[in-house]
């Protein structure tokens, strides 16, 4: 593999940066392994007894519309009860069973890969050449051809019953085997040129190391078909039959997806595999040609192709997509100009997008049963796998195209078109697998899918610009290191993106909206303590901060955001040799310094403004402190934006310049801001939170509500986002201006500028900034690790659940009376009856005790009565304490009563116990009055539930009641 952008005698070496096909093979392998796990899950679960139906119904989900936003909110918004309920009623498959699918498929594939070469060389089909080539002439010729061209001469075989003028290589890279077909052996004497050309082509496959990866793909594909696809199809049809038998419809979004998804998977894999194999063939042709193989002689003997018309032509075109070999005309033309090998095909980008979406979804399914124990880093790991293969396959495609264009002086691709296709693939894949539709046929809000398109375009533009930068500043030098850096950065960026999209972003497409009032409340109470600020901008913050908070919850965000611009610095700063300053870097770093200074100035202005408000020491918490932090964030982002805008005016490499400028400015801004906040109180007119001068670290002062975390992570995240947006706007503006003014195609000449300054200083500054940026991100990552390693079940508390319910809402779903009956029935069965009966028993005992203590229409409070009532008060309080932890009643009227019981008894129970302890008769009587109200409410709940269920003989009323699921706290 050559990694220099060198020019060969007739154009660019087609092997520049490697063929890139291994990355696409890896894409297929990851999809197959991921699909084998998730597609076997329904097969495995169909053999188990557990059912989640009870918990889903008790939570108030609509069984007919599972996966829709409403049903998801009902379960997610009641995680405290739902997670333990599922753990009890439908315990997840053990990990070893979940991983059984991929493991079995991989094992079988290994076995198949080992056996396949032996099968191919079996006696009936193949004969060892040495056994039949008595003169040894054929073998001698093959050895002559192989000498010095391949590391190892393949073992030679003849297929005497295959009469095509062809041959094939198989086996592994370490033990290659070459099979000569009868037609090829015969033409050694009659047409030696054709023999040489074809054998050299096959040897080129050996030299290009195509064997192992091709064999592995074939083996994995066959194992997948046998072990996964067949059982999956059988189970799906069996489910369909059961559905029909129960009178259900097969034409539902859910069932249709289960049928269509494997078909699409098979189709996509076939097309991409064929595409990769076709490009391998072209590479083998070119390698053989480099060895002076007379391939032209072979093409000259080929018959002209019939001109197809109409339907046949279209069918032929479609079949072309799944053929493993290009048409010979294409191969002949590729010898003259290997442009097809550098082309970024729209279909391929689209399919990469589809594969990414499918892989991502399949991987997510592995973890859905264990949702309760997932944590931030586990989510992140799930996103990292598809990100790696997508980043590698797209980056290699784009880099090759850009490097070729740069070396040959052609117009390089911008990445917009390929990004749009990649995004379309991601969208299509996610709609197809139902990730963005939420149990419906189509997404509720298509508009939000524009985000995916934007992200894909951003990613491809960024990749192409990185490639342009590397090819421009390092002409004739190895691109291996820059490519590696960009691949790692791209992987981080896509990992963060996939994780955010999977668990937060996709919800917007389902139709999630943040409730404005609740979000504003959240902003006001974000930072602990009292305080307010004039003018109040909480309404504005409520628009942005909920989204931002979700985004910075993704663990890799700081590292990904920093890597997206920091990796460019060492590439750029290393620059071309001989004292020529790399284009635009000086300008970019100058803009960054300006932007950083502006950010610090703006932070100072914010401090001066808040100081001017002259707030008392006890009013410096709450919205006051929070506004301080958020306005500092705004100041940093403003500095970054200005730096990016200035840098984007460069004649070339605008996006890298804007990224580096915005990133560096943000880093400077963060540094300045942390210093200013930490030294708060020392600079008189800039004091905001303190009156005295001391070193108080900013991360301690703004720790409340994780405000500091939000500010720093958001600032780092917004730097590359701002740079991308500003460059895009600048490009649009230039396009509009260009239409009016003289036509100007492409960017200006990208050449090094002669400089009298010391480029070494620039280089050191570049490397230093990169190191500081990465170190900052690493520190943030480590500091965040504790929170990110807390599992979902550990993280959910009554407070967070209430916050979630406030911001997202917990609507009672409009369902049919039958479904409502099932919901209430399940709620009562899963734990409602237990709580109600306890409360009723306590209430009855309480009323009895009070009735006995009644004298002349008044209750005589005696120590004996108090002692008798105290445990009842505590018990009622305990029963009410379950109310926030257990499911809400899926009937609005009953829920209102149930909530009233919970609130009243939870407050009155402990008050009653306290009054007894203090022997305070008045307080005792007041609390009892409240408790009696609570008891009345719970009686009403019981009555309402009985009225809905309407059958006293139902089994739910008989037998011992089931205790509610115990939350894991």
């Amino acid at each position, binding site marked *: 593999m050559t990694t220099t952008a060198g020019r060969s005698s007739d154009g660019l070496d087609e092997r520049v940066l490697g063929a890139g096909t291994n990355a696409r093979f890896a894409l297929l392998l990851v999809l197959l392994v991921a699909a084998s796990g998730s597609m076997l899950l329904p097969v495995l679960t169909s053999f188990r007894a557990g059912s989640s139906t009870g918990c889903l119904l008790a939570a108030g989900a609509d069984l007919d519309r599972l996966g829709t936003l409403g049903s998801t909110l009902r379960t997610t918004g009641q995680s405290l009860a739902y997670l333990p309920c599922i753990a009890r009623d439908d315990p997840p498959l053990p990990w070893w069973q979940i991983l059984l699918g991929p493991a079995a498929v991989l094992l079988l594939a290994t076995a198949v890969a080992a056996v396949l070469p032996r099968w191919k060389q079996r006696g009936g089909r193949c004969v060892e*050449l040495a056994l039949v080539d008595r003169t040894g002439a054929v073998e001698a010729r093959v050895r002559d051809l192989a000498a010095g061209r391949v590391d190892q001469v393949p073992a030679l075989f003849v297929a*005497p019953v295959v*009469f095509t003028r*062809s*041959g094939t290589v198989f086996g592994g890279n370490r033990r290659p085997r070459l099979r000569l077909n009868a037609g090829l052996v015969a033409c050694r004497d009659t047409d030696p040129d054709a023999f040489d050309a*074809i054998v050299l082509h096959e040897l080129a496959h050996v030299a290009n190391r195509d064997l192992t990866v091709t064999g592995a793909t074939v083996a994995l594909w066959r194992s997948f078909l046998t072990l996964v696809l067949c059982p999956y199809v059988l189970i799906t049809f069996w489910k369909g039959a059961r559905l029909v038998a129960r009178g259900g419809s097969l034409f539902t979004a859910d069932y249709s997806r289960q049928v269509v998804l494997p078909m699409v998977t098979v189709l996509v894999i076939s097309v991409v595999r064929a595409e990769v194999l076709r490009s391998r063939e072209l590479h083998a042709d070119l390698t053989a040609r480099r060895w002076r193989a007379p391939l032209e002689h*072979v093409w000259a003997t080929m018959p002209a192709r019939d001109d197809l018309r109409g339907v046949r032509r279209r069918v032929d075109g479609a079949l072309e997509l799944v053929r493993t070999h290009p048409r*010979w005309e294409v191969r002949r033309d590729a010898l003259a100009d290997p442009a097809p090998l550098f082309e970024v095909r729209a279909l391929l980008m689209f399919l990469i997008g589809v594969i990414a979406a499918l892989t991502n979804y399949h991987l997510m399914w592995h973890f859905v049963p264990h949702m309760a124990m997932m944590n931030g880093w586990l989510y992140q790991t799930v996103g990292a796998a598809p990100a790696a293969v997508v980043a590698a396959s797209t980056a290699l495609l784009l880099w090759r195209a850009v490097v070729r264009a740069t070396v040959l002086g052609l117009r390089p691709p911008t990445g917009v078109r390929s990004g749009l296709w990649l995004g379309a693939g991601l969208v299509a894949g996610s709609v197809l697998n139902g990730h963005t539709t939420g149990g419906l046929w189509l997404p509720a809000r298509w508009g939000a899918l524009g985000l995916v398109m934007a992200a894909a375009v951003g990613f491809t533009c960024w990749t192409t610009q990185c490639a342009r930068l590397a090819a421009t500043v390092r002409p004739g030098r190895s691109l291996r290191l820059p490519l590696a850096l960009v691949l790692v950065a791209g992987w981080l960026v896509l990992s963060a993106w996939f994780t955010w999209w999977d668990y937060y972003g996709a919800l917007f497409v389902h139709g999630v909206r943040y409730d404005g009032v609740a979000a504003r409340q959240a902003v006001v109470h974000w930072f602990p303590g009292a305080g307010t600020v004039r003018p109040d901008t909480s309404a504005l913050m409520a628009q942005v901060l909920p989204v931002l908070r979700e985004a910075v919850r993704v663990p890799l965000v700081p590292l990904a955001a920093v890597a997206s611009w920091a990796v460019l610095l060492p590439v750029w700063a290393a620059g071309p040799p001989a004292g020529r300053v790399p284009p635009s870097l000086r300008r970019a770093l100058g803009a960054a310094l300006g932007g950083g200074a502006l950010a610090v100035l703006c932070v100072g202005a914010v401090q001066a403004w808040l100081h001017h408000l002259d707030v008392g020491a006890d009013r410096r918490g709450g919205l006051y402190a929070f506004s301080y932090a958020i306005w500092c964030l705004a100041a940093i982002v403003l500095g970054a934006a200005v730096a990016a805008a200035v840098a984007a005016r460069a004649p070339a490499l605008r996006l890298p310049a804007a990224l580096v400028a915005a990133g560096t400015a943000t880093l400077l801004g963060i540094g300045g801001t942390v210093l200013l906040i930490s030294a708060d109180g020392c600079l008189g007119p800039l004091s905001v939170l303190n009156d005295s001068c001391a070193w108080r670290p900013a991360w301690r002062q703004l720790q409340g509500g994780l405000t500091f975390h939000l500010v720093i992570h958001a600032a780092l995240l917004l730097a590359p986002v701002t740079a991308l947006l500003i460059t895009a706007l600048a490009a649009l503006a230039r396009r509009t201006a260009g239409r009016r003014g003289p036509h100007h195609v492409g960017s200006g000449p990208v050449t090094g500028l002669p400089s009298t300054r010391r480029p070494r200083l620039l280089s050191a500054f570049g490397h230093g900034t990169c190191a500081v940026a990465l170190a900052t991100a690493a520190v943030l990552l480590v500091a965040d690790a504790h929170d990110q390693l807390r599992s979902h079940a550990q993280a959910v508390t009554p407070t967070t659940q209430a916050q979630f319910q406030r911001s997202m809402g917990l609507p009672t779903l409009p369902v049919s009376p039958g479904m409502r009956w099932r919901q209430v029935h399940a709620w009562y069965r899963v734990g409602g009856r237990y709580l109600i009966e306890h409360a009723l028993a306590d209430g009855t005992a309480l009323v009895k005790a009070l009735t006995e203590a009644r004298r002349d229409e008044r209750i005589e409070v005696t120590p004996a009565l108090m002692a008798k009532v105290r445990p009842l008060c505590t018990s009622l309080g305990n029963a009410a304490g379950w109310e926030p932890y257990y499911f809400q009643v899926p009937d609005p009227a009953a829920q209102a009563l149930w909530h009233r019981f919970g609130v009243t008894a939870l407050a009155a129970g402990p008050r009653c116990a306290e009054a007894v302890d203090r022997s305070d008769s008045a307080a005792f009587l007041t609390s009892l009055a409240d408790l009696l109200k609570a008891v009345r409410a719970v009686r009403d709940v019981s009555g309402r539930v009985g009225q809905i269920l309407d059958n006293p003989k139902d089994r739910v009323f008989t037998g011992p009641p089931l205790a509610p699921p115990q939350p894991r706290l």
Partner: protein
Amino acid sequence: MATAPLTGGQVTSPSEQIAGVRVRDLVRDVVAACAPEEVVVVDGLLRQSDAEVLARLRRRRGDRDPLGFGLADIVPLVAPVLWLTLERARERIAQNLVEGASRGSSTLWRRMLRRRSAPEVIPPLSRDQQRLVHGMVLDAGGEAGLSPDLARRIADGVVAGLVLADPDEEPGEPREGAEAVPGDAPGER
């Protein structure tokens, strides 16, 4: 293709025959003389029993290997054309003698049995029968795309081989220089 009726000739059935030419030997000799570039191919075919070779020749499976050269054009080779034609001729001659003896046996069991069968032998032929075989080979060669000259040489070679076969020679024994006959020991490598 010649369709002259097979008349006359006192020929014994294959199982009873004691003289004649084995198809595989005839193919090998004719290919060595007319298309020496195919000797390696024929040697490869000769490592299998007649039944196996015929089954594979008739199947004509395509080449679908992912790393193959990708040319699907079938090269007109002498060996397969000749072997199939001789087998057809032998069957016709035999069929005339034992009507429908072992035709249409395509079950797996029969095929397995056949693969272990002894090499096929063409018995000594009458002049008419030789003419028939000559015509069949010529026609098949033309159909397969061989040049008329080559087809004639092959047909002549076949007839010469049939005529020159020593009636006293025991066809079951390998001739000097020939490979071991897998028909006797199937699967031997």
